[in-house]
Protein backbone atom coordinates (compact mmCIF):
# COMPACT_ATOMS: atom_id res chain seq x y z
CA UNK A 1 0.00 0.00 0.00
CA UNK A 2 2.81 2.40 0.86
CA UNK A 3 4.40 1.67 -2.49
CA UNK A 4 1.11 2.46 -4.14
CA UNK A 5 0.77 5.84 -2.44
CA UNK A 6 4.29 6.76 -3.52
CA UNK A 7 3.38 5.82 -7.05
CA UNK A 8 0.26 7.96 -7.05
CA UNK A 9 2.14 10.90 -5.59
CA UNK A 10 4.60 10.68 -8.44
CA UNK A 11 1.73 10.56 -10.93
CA UNK A 12 0.29 13.78 -9.54
CA UNK A 13 3.69 15.46 -9.83
CA UNK A 14 3.63 14.59 -13.54
CA UNK A 15 0.16 16.00 -13.99
CA UNK A 16 0.62 19.20 -12.04
CA UNK A 17 4.00 20.02 -13.52
CA UNK A 18 2.84 19.76 -17.09
CA UNK A 19 0.94 22.91 -18.00
CA UNK A 20 -0.48 21.39 -21.15
CA UNK A 21 -2.03 18.45 -19.38
CA UNK A 22 -3.33 20.73 -16.64
CA UNK A 23 -4.96 22.89 -19.26
CA UNK A 24 -6.55 19.91 -20.98
CA UNK A 25 -7.72 18.64 -17.61
CA UNK A 26 -9.29 21.75 -16.20
CA UNK A 27 -9.28 24.50 -18.80
CA UNK A 28 -10.99 22.44 -21.47
CA UNK A 29 -14.11 21.39 -19.59
CA UNK A 30 -14.85 24.91 -18.50
CA UNK A 31 -14.06 26.40 -21.89
CA UNK A 32 -16.15 23.83 -23.72
CA UNK A 33 -19.16 24.16 -21.49
CA UNK A 34 -19.03 27.93 -21.83
CA UNK A 35 -18.58 27.70 -25.58
CA UNK A 36 -21.44 25.33 -26.09
CA UNK A 37 -23.58 27.09 -23.58
CA UNK A 38 -23.18 30.63 -24.77
CA UNK A 39 -21.68 30.76 -28.20
CA UNK A 40 -22.71 27.68 -30.12
CA UNK A 41 -26.43 27.68 -30.01
CA UNK A 42 -29.38 26.72 -32.17
CA UNK A 43 -31.64 29.20 -30.50
CA UNK A 44 -32.52 32.49 -32.11
CA UNK A 45 -32.37 35.61 -30.08
CA UNK A 46 -32.86 39.17 -31.28
CA UNK A 47 -32.44 38.25 -34.90
CA UNK A 48 -32.34 41.32 -37.14
CA UNK A 49 -35.09 41.42 -39.73
CA UNK A 50 -36.32 43.90 -42.31
CA UNK A 51 -39.92 44.72 -43.13
CA UNK A 52 -41.35 45.63 -46.49
CA UNK A 53 -44.86 46.79 -45.69
CA UNK A 54 -46.72 47.66 -48.87
CA UNK A 55 -50.05 48.38 -47.23
CA UNK A 56 -49.17 50.10 -43.93
CA UNK A 57 -52.62 49.60 -42.44
CA UNK A 58 -53.86 48.75 -38.95
CA UNK A 59 -53.51 44.98 -39.33
CA UNK A 60 -49.94 44.97 -40.62
CA UNK A 61 -48.94 47.43 -37.91
CA UNK A 62 -50.40 45.19 -35.27
CA UNK A 63 -48.56 42.16 -36.65
CA UNK A 64 -45.29 44.07 -36.90
CA UNK A 65 -45.76 45.18 -33.33
CA UNK A 66 -46.22 41.63 -32.17
CA UNK A 67 -43.10 40.53 -34.00
CA UNK A 68 -40.92 43.32 -32.73
CA UNK A 69 -42.12 42.89 -29.18
CA UNK A 70 -41.05 39.25 -29.14
CA UNK A 71 -37.57 38.64 -27.82
CA UNK A 72 -36.66 36.66 -30.90
CA UNK A 73 -36.66 39.47 -33.43
CA UNK A 74 -35.65 43.06 -33.67
CA UNK A 75 -36.65 45.13 -36.64
CA UNK A 76 -33.58 46.62 -38.17
CA UNK A 77 -34.94 48.34 -41.18
CA UNK A 78 -38.12 49.28 -42.96
CA UNK A 79 -37.64 49.09 -46.66
CA UNK A 80 -39.73 50.66 -49.37
CA UNK A 81 -39.62 48.31 -52.34
CA UNK A 82 -38.58 44.89 -53.56
CA UNK A 83 -35.30 46.01 -55.04
CA UNK A 84 -34.00 46.79 -51.58
CA UNK A 85 -34.53 43.25 -50.27
CA UNK A 86 -31.39 41.95 -51.89
CA UNK A 87 -29.32 44.85 -50.62
CA UNK A 88 -30.71 44.33 -47.16
CA UNK A 89 -29.47 40.72 -47.09
CA UNK A 90 -26.17 41.53 -48.64
CA UNK A 91 -25.21 43.80 -45.80
CA UNK A 92 -25.25 40.56 -43.86
CA UNK A 93 -26.91 41.69 -40.68
CA UNK A 94 -30.47 40.99 -41.66
CA UNK A 95 -31.46 37.33 -41.55
CA UNK A 96 -35.03 37.63 -42.82
CA UNK A 97 -37.31 39.99 -44.68
CA UNK A 98 -41.09 40.04 -44.19
CA UNK A 99 -43.12 41.27 -47.12
CA UNK A 100 -46.73 42.29 -46.50
CA UNK A 101 -48.76 42.50 -49.70
CA UNK A 102 -50.72 45.51 -50.77
CA UNK A 103 -54.13 46.16 -49.18
CA UNK A 104 -53.43 43.58 -46.55
CA UNK A 105 -56.26 44.50 -44.21
CA UNK A 106 -58.81 44.86 -46.98
CA UNK A 107 -57.94 41.54 -48.55
CA UNK A 108 -58.08 39.85 -45.19
CA UNK A 109 -61.60 41.00 -44.46
CA UNK A 110 -63.02 40.77 -47.98
CA UNK A 111 -61.28 37.76 -49.49
CA UNK A 112 -60.51 36.09 -46.16
CA UNK A 113 -57.00 35.76 -47.34
CA UNK A 114 -53.84 37.88 -47.25
CA UNK A 115 -50.21 36.89 -47.72
CA UNK A 116 -47.05 37.58 -45.82
CA UNK A 117 -43.94 36.49 -47.56
CA UNK A 118 -41.10 35.33 -45.30
CA UNK A 119 -37.76 35.48 -47.04
CA UNK A 120 -34.92 34.07 -45.01
CA UNK A 121 -31.19 33.99 -45.50
CA UNK A 122 -30.64 30.28 -45.98
CA UNK A 123 -26.88 30.39 -46.11
CA UNK A 124 -27.41 28.99 -42.64
CA UNK A 125 -30.29 26.57 -43.19
CA UNK A 126 -30.89 25.74 -39.55
CA UNK A 127 -31.33 29.33 -38.50
CA UNK A 128 -33.44 30.06 -41.58
CA UNK A 129 -35.72 27.21 -40.68
CA UNK A 130 -36.08 28.29 -37.10
CA UNK A 131 -36.79 31.89 -38.08
CA UNK A 132 -39.50 30.93 -40.51
CA UNK A 133 -41.07 28.63 -37.91
CA UNK A 134 -41.07 31.33 -35.28
CA UNK A 135 -42.58 33.96 -37.60
CA UNK A 136 -45.24 31.51 -38.72
CA UNK A 137 -46.19 30.73 -35.19
CA UNK A 138 -46.52 34.42 -34.33
CA UNK A 139 -48.75 34.87 -37.36
CA UNK A 140 -50.79 31.86 -36.43
CA UNK A 141 -51.33 33.15 -32.93
CA UNK A 142 -52.51 36.45 -34.31
CA UNK A 143 -54.87 34.67 -36.62
CA UNK A 144 -56.36 32.75 -33.76
CA UNK A 145 -56.83 35.95 -31.82
CA UNK A 146 -58.79 37.72 -34.54
CA UNK A 147 -60.84 34.65 -35.23
CA UNK A 148 -61.74 34.10 -31.65
CA UNK A 149 -65.18 35.69 -31.99
CA UNK A 150 -65.99 34.07 -35.27
CA UNK A 151 -67.62 30.71 -35.33
CA UNK A 152 -65.63 28.45 -37.57
CA UNK A 153 -66.71 24.92 -37.42
CA UNK A 154 -64.32 22.00 -37.57
CA UNK A 155 -61.05 23.68 -36.99
CA UNK A 156 -57.98 21.66 -36.15
CA UNK A 157 -55.60 23.61 -34.00
CA UNK A 158 -52.32 21.82 -33.33
CA UNK A 159 -51.00 22.54 -29.92
CA UNK A 160 -47.38 21.57 -29.54
CA UNK A 161 -45.50 21.15 -26.34
CA UNK A 162 -41.78 20.54 -26.27
CA UNK A 163 -41.52 18.01 -23.49
CA UNK A 164 -38.44 17.93 -21.23
CA UNK A 165 -37.03 21.09 -22.74
CA UNK A 166 -39.94 23.46 -23.15
CA UNK A 167 -37.89 26.44 -24.15
CA UNK A 168 -35.86 24.40 -26.61
CA UNK A 169 -32.65 25.42 -24.94
CA UNK A 170 -29.79 23.97 -26.92
CA UNK A 171 -27.54 23.98 -23.89
CA UNK A 172 -29.68 21.15 -22.50
CA UNK A 173 -28.72 19.12 -25.51
CA UNK A 174 -25.06 20.09 -25.37
CA UNK A 175 -24.34 19.51 -21.70
CA UNK A 176 -24.67 15.71 -21.82
CA UNK A 177 -22.60 15.67 -25.01
CA UNK A 178 -19.86 17.92 -23.69
CA UNK A 179 -19.70 15.99 -20.45
CA UNK A 180 -19.30 12.78 -22.43
CA UNK A 181 -16.57 14.23 -24.64
CA UNK A 182 -14.61 15.66 -21.73
CA UNK A 183 -14.75 12.49 -19.66
CA UNK A 184 -13.70 10.50 -22.72
CA UNK A 185 -10.86 12.87 -23.49
CA UNK A 186 -9.52 13.12 -19.96
CA UNK A 187 -9.90 9.46 -19.16
CA UNK A 188 -8.92 7.76 -22.38
CA UNK A 189 -6.52 10.17 -24.01
CA UNK A 190 -4.72 11.35 -20.91
CA UNK A 191 -4.19 7.85 -19.52
CA UNK A 192 -3.05 6.39 -22.80
CA UNK A 193 -0.60 9.26 -23.21
CA UNK A 194 0.70 8.97 -19.68
CA UNK A 195 1.25 5.22 -19.97
CA UNK A 196 2.95 5.43 -23.37
CA UNK A 197 5.11 8.23 -21.99
CA UNK A 198 6.63 5.77 -19.54
CA UNK A 199 7.26 3.40 -22.41
CA UNK A 200 8.98 6.10 -24.39
CA UNK A 201 11.12 7.22 -21.48
CA UNK A 202 12.12 3.65 -20.71
CA UNK A 203 10.77 3.96 -17.19
CA UNK A 204 8.07 1.39 -17.92
CA UNK A 205 10.79 -1.21 -18.27
CA UNK A 206 12.23 -0.22 -14.91
CA UNK A 207 8.79 -0.41 -13.32
CA UNK A 208 8.22 -3.88 -14.76
CA UNK A 209 11.59 -5.06 -13.49
CA UNK A 210 10.74 -3.69 -10.04
CA UNK A 211 8.74 -5.73 -7.53
CA UNK A 212 5.60 -3.82 -8.55
CA UNK A 213 3.21 -6.11 -10.35
CA UNK A 214 2.09 -5.06 -13.84
CA UNK A 215 -1.47 -4.51 -12.69
CA UNK A 216 -0.24 -2.35 -9.80
CA UNK A 217 1.61 -0.19 -12.30
CA UNK A 218 -1.50 0.22 -14.44
CA UNK A 219 -3.83 0.90 -11.51
CA UNK A 220 -1.31 3.40 -10.19
CA UNK A 221 -1.24 5.16 -13.54
CA UNK A 222 -5.00 5.17 -13.90
CA UNK A 223 -6.08 6.04 -10.39
CA UNK A 224 -5.24 9.76 -10.48
CA UNK A 225 -7.26 10.11 -13.63
CA UNK A 226 -10.32 8.48 -12.09
CA UNK A 227 -10.07 11.06 -9.34
CA UNK A 228 -9.56 13.99 -11.73
CA UNK A 229 -12.35 12.83 -14.04
CA UNK A 230 -14.77 12.72 -11.14
CA UNK A 231 -13.80 16.27 -10.24
CA UNK A 232 -14.36 17.23 -13.86
CA UNK A 233 -17.78 15.63 -13.94
CA UNK A 234 -18.71 17.55 -10.79
CA UNK A 235 -17.47 20.83 -12.28
CA UNK A 236 -19.48 20.27 -15.44
CA UNK A 237 -22.67 19.42 -13.57
CA UNK A 238 -22.27 22.40 -11.25
CA UNK A 239 -21.62 24.78 -14.14
CA UNK A 240 -24.60 23.54 -16.07
CA UNK A 241 -26.94 23.60 -13.09
CA UNK A 242 -25.93 27.00 -11.76
CA UNK A 243 -25.05 28.90 -14.91
CA UNK A 244 -27.31 27.34 -17.50
CA UNK A 245 -30.14 26.28 -15.19
CA UNK A 246 -29.92 22.75 -16.47
CA UNK A 247 -32.24 20.63 -14.39
CA UNK A 248 -31.20 17.38 -12.79
CA UNK A 249 -34.59 15.73 -12.50
CA UNK A 250 -33.34 12.30 -11.54
CA UNK A 251 -31.19 11.10 -8.69
CA UNK A 252 -27.75 12.60 -8.16
CA UNK A 253 -26.63 9.26 -6.81
CA UNK A 254 -27.49 7.49 -10.04
CA UNK A 255 -25.88 10.30 -12.03
CA UNK A 256 -22.70 9.83 -10.01
CA UNK A 257 -22.74 6.06 -10.37
CA UNK A 258 -23.25 6.17 -14.14
CA UNK A 259 -20.54 8.81 -14.52
CA UNK A 260 -18.02 6.69 -12.63
CA UNK A 261 -19.03 3.72 -14.77
CA UNK A 262 -18.41 5.71 -17.94
CA UNK A 263 -15.10 7.03 -16.59
CA UNK A 264 -13.91 3.49 -15.90
CA UNK A 265 -15.09 2.50 -19.36
CA UNK A 266 -13.08 5.31 -20.95
CA UNK A 267 -10.04 4.49 -18.80
CA UNK A 268 -10.09 0.89 -19.92
CA UNK A 269 -10.18 2.15 -23.50
CA UNK A 270 -7.20 4.34 -22.67
CA UNK A 271 -5.30 1.36 -21.30
CA UNK A 272 -6.17 -0.62 -24.41
CA UNK A 273 -4.85 2.19 -26.61
CA UNK A 274 -1.64 2.34 -24.61
CA UNK A 275 -1.06 -1.38 -25.11
CA UNK A 276 -1.12 -0.99 -28.87
CA UNK A 277 0.84 2.24 -29.21
CA UNK A 278 4.53 2.69 -28.59
CA UNK A 279 4.73 6.48 -28.57
CA UNK A 280 2.76 9.30 -27.04
CA UNK A 281 2.03 10.65 -30.52
CA UNK A 282 0.47 7.42 -31.68
CA UNK A 283 -1.57 7.23 -28.51
CA UNK A 284 -2.80 10.75 -29.05
CA UNK A 285 -3.67 10.18 -32.69
CA UNK A 286 -5.53 6.96 -31.93
CA UNK A 287 -7.41 8.66 -29.11
CA UNK A 288 -8.36 11.63 -31.24
CA UNK A 289 -9.24 9.83 -34.43
CA UNK A 290 -10.46 6.60 -32.94
CA UNK A 291 -12.34 8.00 -29.99
CA UNK A 292 -13.11 11.66 -30.26
CA UNK A 293 -14.41 11.63 -33.80
CA UNK A 294 -16.87 8.77 -33.27
CA UNK A 295 -17.94 10.34 -30.00
CA UNK A 296 -18.71 13.61 -31.71
CA UNK A 297 -20.18 12.20 -34.90
CA UNK A 298 -21.85 8.94 -33.98
CA UNK A 299 -23.00 9.33 -30.39
CA UNK A 300 -26.06 11.38 -31.17
CA UNK A 301 -24.43 14.34 -29.50
CA UNK A 302 -24.76 16.65 -32.49
CA UNK A 303 -26.32 14.55 -35.24
CA UNK A 304 -29.45 12.59 -34.40
CA UNK A 305 -28.82 8.87 -34.74
CA UNK A 306 -32.29 8.19 -36.14
CA UNK A 307 -31.59 10.27 -39.22
CA UNK A 308 -28.34 8.46 -40.04
CA UNK A 309 -28.00 5.83 -42.77
CA UNK A 310 -28.75 2.35 -41.42
CA UNK A 311 -25.09 1.27 -41.49
CA UNK A 312 -24.08 4.18 -39.27
CA UNK A 313 -27.01 3.58 -36.95
CA UNK A 314 -25.80 0.03 -36.43
CA UNK A 315 -22.24 1.25 -35.97
CA UNK A 316 -23.30 3.80 -33.38
CA UNK A 317 -24.25 0.95 -31.06
CA UNK A 318 -20.63 0.08 -30.38
CA UNK A 319 -19.84 3.61 -29.25
CA UNK A 320 -19.98 3.71 -25.44
CA UNK A 321 -20.64 7.45 -25.57
CA UNK A 322 -23.99 6.86 -27.27
CA UNK A 323 -25.27 4.90 -24.30
CA UNK A 324 -23.87 7.34 -21.78
CA UNK A 325 -25.58 10.27 -23.50
CA UNK A 326 -28.90 8.41 -23.42
CA UNK A 327 -28.36 7.78 -19.71
CA UNK A 328 -27.39 11.38 -19.00
CA UNK A 329 -30.35 12.82 -20.87
CA UNK A 330 -32.62 10.36 -19.13
CA UNK A 331 -31.42 11.27 -15.67
CA UNK A 332 -30.98 15.00 -16.11
CA UNK A 333 -33.91 15.93 -18.32
CA UNK A 334 -36.48 13.18 -17.91
CA UNK A 335 -35.77 12.23 -14.35
CA UNK A 336 -35.94 8.51 -15.04
CA UNK A 337 -34.33 5.99 -12.74
CA UNK A 338 -32.39 2.76 -13.12
CA UNK A 339 -35.59 0.90 -13.92
CA UNK A 340 -35.61 2.52 -17.34
CA UNK A 341 -31.87 2.77 -17.82
CA UNK A 342 -30.77 -0.74 -16.83
CA UNK A 343 -30.30 -1.80 -20.44
CA UNK A 344 -27.89 1.05 -21.24
CA UNK A 345 -26.11 0.52 -17.94
CA UNK A 346 -25.57 -3.17 -18.62
CA UNK A 347 -24.25 -2.38 -22.10
CA UNK A 348 -21.71 0.02 -20.60
CA UNK A 349 -20.66 -2.50 -17.96
CA UNK A 350 -20.27 -5.23 -20.59
CA UNK A 351 -18.17 -2.95 -22.80
CA UNK A 352 -15.95 -2.02 -19.86
CA UNK A 353 -15.35 -5.65 -18.93
CA UNK A 354 -14.59 -6.44 -22.56
CA UNK A 355 -12.03 -3.63 -22.87
CA UNK A 356 -10.35 -4.61 -19.61
CA UNK A 357 -10.04 -8.27 -20.58
CA UNK A 358 -8.73 -7.31 -24.00
CA UNK A 359 -6.09 -4.99 -22.56
CA UNK A 360 -4.94 -7.59 -20.04
CA UNK A 361 -4.48 -10.02 -22.93
CA UNK A 362 -2.63 -7.50 -25.06
CA UNK A 363 -0.50 -6.49 -22.12
CA UNK A 364 0.51 -10.09 -21.45
CA UNK A 365 1.42 -10.63 -25.09
CA UNK A 366 3.60 -7.55 -24.99
CA UNK A 367 5.38 -8.76 -21.88
CA UNK A 368 6.25 -12.04 -23.58
Amino acid sequence: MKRFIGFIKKEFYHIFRDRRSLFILFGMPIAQIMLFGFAITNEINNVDISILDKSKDATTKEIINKISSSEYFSIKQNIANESEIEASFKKGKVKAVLVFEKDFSKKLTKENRATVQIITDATDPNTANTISNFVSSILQKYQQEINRDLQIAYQVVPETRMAYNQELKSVFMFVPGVMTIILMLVSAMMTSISITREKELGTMEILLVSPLRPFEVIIGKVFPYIFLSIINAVIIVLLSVFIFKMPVQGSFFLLGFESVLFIVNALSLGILISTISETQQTAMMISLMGLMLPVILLSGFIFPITSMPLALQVLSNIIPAKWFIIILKGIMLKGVGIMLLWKETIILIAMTVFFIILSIKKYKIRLE
Partner: protein
Amino acid sequence: MKNKTIIHVENLTKMFGDFTAVNAISFEVKKGEIFGFLGANGAGKTTAMKMLIGISTPTSGTAQVADFDVYTNPDGIKKNIGYMSQKFALYDDLTVKENITFYGGIYGLSPRQIKEKRCQLVDELGLEDVVNELVISLPLGWKQKLAFSVALLHNPKIIFLDEPTGGVDPITRRQFWEMIYKTAHNGTTVFVTTHYMDEAEYCDRVSIMVDGKIEALDTPQKLKQQFEVDSMNDVFLKLARG
Protein backbone atom coordinates in the same frame (compact mmCIF):
# COMPACT_ATOMS: atom_id res chain seq x y z
CA MET B 1 32.73 -15.93 -1.03
CA LYS B 2 33.91 -14.93 -4.48
CA ASN B 3 33.29 -18.39 -5.82
CA LYS B 4 29.62 -18.61 -5.00
CA THR B 5 27.48 -18.94 -8.13
CA ILE B 6 24.82 -16.25 -8.32
CA ILE B 7 23.50 -16.75 -11.84
CA HIS B 8 23.17 -20.27 -13.13
CA VAL B 9 21.86 -20.77 -16.65
CA GLU B 10 21.46 -24.05 -18.49
CA ASN B 11 20.16 -24.56 -22.01
CA LEU B 12 18.03 -21.46 -21.71
CA THR B 13 15.93 -21.05 -24.87
CA LYS B 14 13.40 -18.52 -26.05
CA MET B 15 11.35 -19.01 -29.19
CA PHE B 16 9.04 -16.52 -30.83
CA GLY B 17 6.94 -18.72 -33.09
CA ASP B 18 9.46 -20.49 -35.34
CA PHE B 19 12.21 -18.01 -34.61
CA THR B 20 14.74 -19.01 -31.98
CA ALA B 21 15.92 -15.80 -30.36
CA VAL B 22 17.99 -17.47 -27.67
CA ASN B 23 19.30 -20.93 -28.49
CA ALA B 24 20.14 -23.12 -25.48
CA ILE B 25 22.65 -20.87 -23.78
CA SER B 26 24.47 -22.04 -20.65
CA PHE B 27 26.75 -20.08 -18.32
CA GLU B 28 27.46 -19.23 -14.71
CA VAL B 29 28.22 -15.94 -13.03
CA LYS B 30 30.04 -15.77 -9.68
CA LYS B 31 29.26 -13.41 -6.88
CA GLY B 32 31.07 -10.09 -7.16
CA GLU B 33 32.05 -10.69 -10.77
CA ILE B 34 31.76 -8.17 -13.61
CA PHE B 35 30.25 -10.23 -16.38
CA GLY B 36 30.22 -8.75 -19.87
CA PHE B 37 27.39 -9.90 -22.11
CA LEU B 38 28.31 -9.04 -25.67
CA GLY B 39 26.73 -9.55 -29.05
CA ALA B 40 25.72 -7.71 -32.18
CA ASN B 41 22.28 -6.14 -32.41
CA GLY B 42 19.70 -8.88 -32.81
CA ALA B 43 22.01 -11.57 -31.44
CA GLY B 44 19.58 -12.22 -28.60
CA LYS B 45 21.26 -10.34 -25.74
CA THR B 46 18.20 -8.35 -24.74
CA THR B 47 15.90 -11.36 -24.91
CA ALA B 48 18.26 -13.39 -22.75
CA MET B 49 18.55 -10.57 -20.26
CA LYS B 50 14.76 -10.16 -20.08
CA MET B 51 14.45 -13.79 -19.07
CA LEU B 52 17.07 -13.34 -16.37
CA ILE B 53 15.38 -10.29 -14.85
CA GLY B 54 12.03 -12.02 -14.65
CA ILE B 55 9.96 -10.15 -17.21
CA SER B 56 9.96 -12.84 -19.88
CA THR B 57 9.29 -16.55 -19.41
CA PRO B 58 11.77 -18.91 -21.14
CA THR B 59 10.53 -21.48 -23.63
CA SER B 60 12.81 -24.15 -22.18
CA GLY B 61 15.96 -24.65 -20.14
CA THR B 62 16.63 -23.61 -16.58
CA ALA B 63 17.95 -20.51 -14.89
CA GLN B 64 18.45 -19.45 -11.29
CA VAL B 65 19.17 -15.84 -10.51
CA ALA B 66 20.16 -14.91 -6.96
CA ASP B 67 18.94 -18.39 -5.92
CA PHE B 68 15.47 -17.81 -7.38
CA ASP B 69 14.06 -19.76 -10.29
CA VAL B 70 12.99 -17.75 -13.32
CA TYR B 71 9.88 -19.89 -13.82
CA THR B 72 8.59 -20.20 -10.30
CA ASN B 73 9.83 -17.11 -8.55
CA PRO B 74 10.33 -14.10 -10.82
CA ASP B 75 9.13 -11.88 -7.97
CA GLY B 76 11.97 -13.10 -5.78
CA ILE B 77 14.41 -12.21 -8.56
CA LYS B 78 12.91 -8.75 -8.99
CA LYS B 79 13.41 -7.90 -5.33
CA ASN B 80 17.06 -8.90 -5.42
CA ILE B 81 18.27 -7.31 -8.61
CA GLY B 82 18.75 -3.81 -9.87
CA TYR B 83 18.32 -2.80 -13.49
CA MET B 84 19.46 0.15 -15.49
CA SER B 85 18.93 0.67 -19.20
CA GLN B 86 20.48 2.87 -21.80
CA LYS B 87 17.69 5.39 -21.37
CA PHE B 88 18.66 5.98 -17.71
CA ALA B 89 14.94 6.07 -16.99
CA LEU B 90 14.72 8.80 -14.44
CA TYR B 91 11.66 11.04 -14.44
CA ASP B 92 12.67 14.34 -16.01
CA ASP B 93 9.88 16.29 -14.39
CA LEU B 94 10.71 15.07 -10.90
CA THR B 95 13.54 16.43 -8.79
CA VAL B 96 16.58 14.38 -7.86
CA LYS B 97 15.12 13.93 -4.40
CA GLU B 98 11.71 12.90 -5.68
CA ASN B 99 13.23 10.36 -8.05
CA ILE B 100 15.19 8.79 -5.23
CA THR B 101 12.14 8.73 -2.97
CA PHE B 102 9.99 7.20 -5.69
CA TYR B 103 12.38 4.42 -6.65
CA GLY B 104 13.19 3.70 -3.03
CA GLY B 105 9.48 3.52 -2.38
CA ILE B 106 8.64 1.00 -5.06
CA TYR B 107 11.35 -1.30 -3.70
CA GLY B 108 9.67 -1.09 -0.34
CA LEU B 109 12.30 0.94 1.52
CA SER B 110 11.06 2.76 4.61
CA PRO B 111 11.09 6.57 4.63
CA ARG B 112 14.00 6.49 7.07
CA GLN B 113 16.03 4.12 4.91
CA ILE B 114 15.27 6.28 1.90
CA LYS B 115 16.48 9.37 3.68
CA GLU B 116 19.68 7.67 4.80
CA LYS B 117 20.36 6.33 1.33
CA ARG B 118 19.59 9.69 -0.22
CA CYS B 119 22.00 11.59 2.00
CA GLN B 120 24.72 9.03 1.36
CA LEU B 121 24.11 9.07 -2.38
CA VAL B 122 23.93 12.83 -2.70
CA ASP B 123 27.13 13.09 -0.73
CA GLU B 124 28.98 10.52 -2.83
CA LEU B 125 27.91 11.97 -6.16
CA GLY B 126 28.31 15.58 -5.06
CA LEU B 127 24.71 16.44 -5.86
CA GLU B 128 24.10 18.72 -2.85
CA ASP B 129 23.37 21.77 -4.98
CA VAL B 130 20.92 20.10 -7.32
CA VAL B 131 19.01 17.79 -5.02
CA ASN B 132 15.88 19.88 -5.42
CA GLU B 133 16.35 20.55 -9.13
CA LEU B 134 14.39 18.76 -11.83
CA VAL B 135 16.36 15.92 -13.36
CA ILE B 136 15.87 17.42 -16.81
CA SER B 137 18.34 20.18 -15.92
CA LEU B 138 21.18 17.76 -15.11
CA PRO B 139 24.01 16.98 -17.55
CA LEU B 140 23.87 13.54 -19.13
CA GLY B 141 26.81 12.21 -17.15
CA TRP B 142 25.17 13.09 -13.85
CA LYS B 143 21.89 11.54 -14.92
CA GLN B 144 23.75 8.34 -15.74
CA LYS B 145 25.45 8.20 -12.36
CA LEU B 146 22.23 9.04 -10.60
CA ALA B 147 20.36 6.34 -12.52
CA PHE B 148 23.02 3.83 -11.57
CA SER B 149 22.91 4.79 -7.90
CA VAL B 150 19.12 4.70 -7.91
CA ALA B 151 19.22 1.17 -9.33
CA LEU B 152 21.43 0.24 -6.35
CA LEU B 153 19.21 1.88 -3.71
CA HIS B 154 17.81 -1.38 -2.41
CA ASN B 155 21.21 -3.11 -2.18
CA PRO B 156 20.52 -5.67 -4.91
CA LYS B 157 22.66 -8.79 -5.14
CA ILE B 158 23.06 -8.36 -8.88
CA ILE B 159 22.82 -5.29 -11.04
CA PHE B 160 21.90 -5.66 -14.70
CA LEU B 161 23.15 -2.88 -16.95
CA ASP B 162 21.77 -2.74 -20.47
CA GLU B 163 24.20 -0.72 -22.58
CA PRO B 164 24.67 1.73 -19.75
CA THR B 165 27.18 3.97 -21.46
CA GLY B 166 25.41 4.65 -24.74
CA GLY B 167 25.76 8.23 -25.86
CA VAL B 168 28.09 9.55 -23.17
CA ASP B 169 31.58 10.93 -23.65
CA PRO B 170 34.74 8.86 -22.97
CA ILE B 171 35.62 10.66 -19.75
CA THR B 172 32.17 10.06 -18.30
CA ARG B 173 32.35 6.46 -19.43
CA ARG B 174 35.64 6.08 -17.64
CA GLN B 175 34.15 7.54 -14.45
CA PHE B 176 31.15 5.32 -14.80
CA TRP B 177 33.33 2.23 -15.01
CA GLU B 178 35.03 3.32 -11.81
CA MET B 179 31.61 3.24 -10.17
CA ILE B 180 31.03 -0.23 -11.58
CA TYR B 181 34.34 -1.45 -10.16
CA LYS B 182 33.51 -0.03 -6.78
CA THR B 183 30.13 -1.71 -6.80
CA ALA B 184 31.62 -5.08 -7.73
CA HIS B 185 34.26 -4.63 -5.07
CA ASN B 186 31.48 -4.21 -2.50
CA GLY B 187 30.16 -7.63 -3.47
CA THR B 188 27.41 -6.76 -5.94
CA THR B 189 27.56 -8.81 -9.10
CA VAL B 190 27.52 -6.73 -12.29
CA PHE B 191 25.94 -8.10 -15.45
CA VAL B 192 26.59 -5.69 -18.28
CA THR B 193 25.84 -5.57 -21.98
CA THR B 194 27.82 -3.19 -24.12
CA HIS B 195 28.77 -2.29 -27.65
CA TYR B 196 32.08 -0.78 -26.71
CA MET B 197 34.82 -3.36 -27.00
CA ASP B 198 37.21 -1.35 -24.87
CA GLU B 199 34.67 -1.75 -22.08
CA ALA B 200 34.70 -5.49 -22.65
CA GLU B 201 38.34 -5.42 -21.61
CA TYR B 202 37.30 -4.09 -18.20
CA CYS B 203 35.12 -7.11 -17.47
CA ASP B 204 36.25 -10.09 -15.40
CA ARG B 205 34.71 -12.47 -17.91
CA VAL B 206 32.99 -11.93 -21.22
CA SER B 207 30.51 -13.94 -23.23
CA ILE B 208 29.85 -13.22 -26.88
CA MET B 209 26.51 -14.11 -28.43
CA VAL B 210 26.08 -14.74 -32.16
CA ASP B 211 22.69 -15.65 -33.60
CA GLY B 212 21.18 -16.71 -30.29
CA LYS B 213 24.13 -18.81 -29.16
CA ILE B 214 27.06 -18.08 -26.87
CA GLU B 215 30.08 -18.57 -29.13
CA ALA B 216 32.77 -17.59 -26.68
CA LEU B 217 33.03 -17.25 -22.93
CA ASP B 218 36.18 -16.53 -20.93
CA THR B 219 38.33 -13.78 -19.50
CA PRO B 220 39.27 -11.11 -22.04
CA GLN B 221 42.88 -12.23 -21.74
CA LYS B 222 42.17 -15.85 -22.61
CA LEU B 223 39.78 -14.93 -25.41
CA LYS B 224 42.44 -12.85 -27.09
CA GLN B 225 44.89 -15.73 -26.81
CA GLN B 226 42.34 -18.21 -28.09
CA PHE B 227 41.58 -16.14 -31.18
CA GLU B 228 45.18 -14.98 -31.56
CA VAL B 229 44.37 -11.30 -31.71
CA ASP B 230 45.37 -8.19 -29.77
CA SER B 231 42.08 -6.70 -28.74
CA MET B 232 38.54 -7.67 -27.81
CA ASN B 233 37.42 -5.74 -30.85
CA ASP B 234 39.18 -8.25 -33.10
CA VAL B 235 37.81 -11.16 -31.10
CA PHE B 236 34.34 -9.80 -31.66
CA LEU B 237 34.84 -9.18 -35.36
CA LYS B 238 36.24 -12.66 -35.91
CA LEU B 239 33.24 -14.21 -34.21
CA ALA B 240 30.55 -12.00 -35.65
CA ARG B 241 31.80 -12.45 -39.18
CA GLY B 242 31.88 -16.19 -38.62
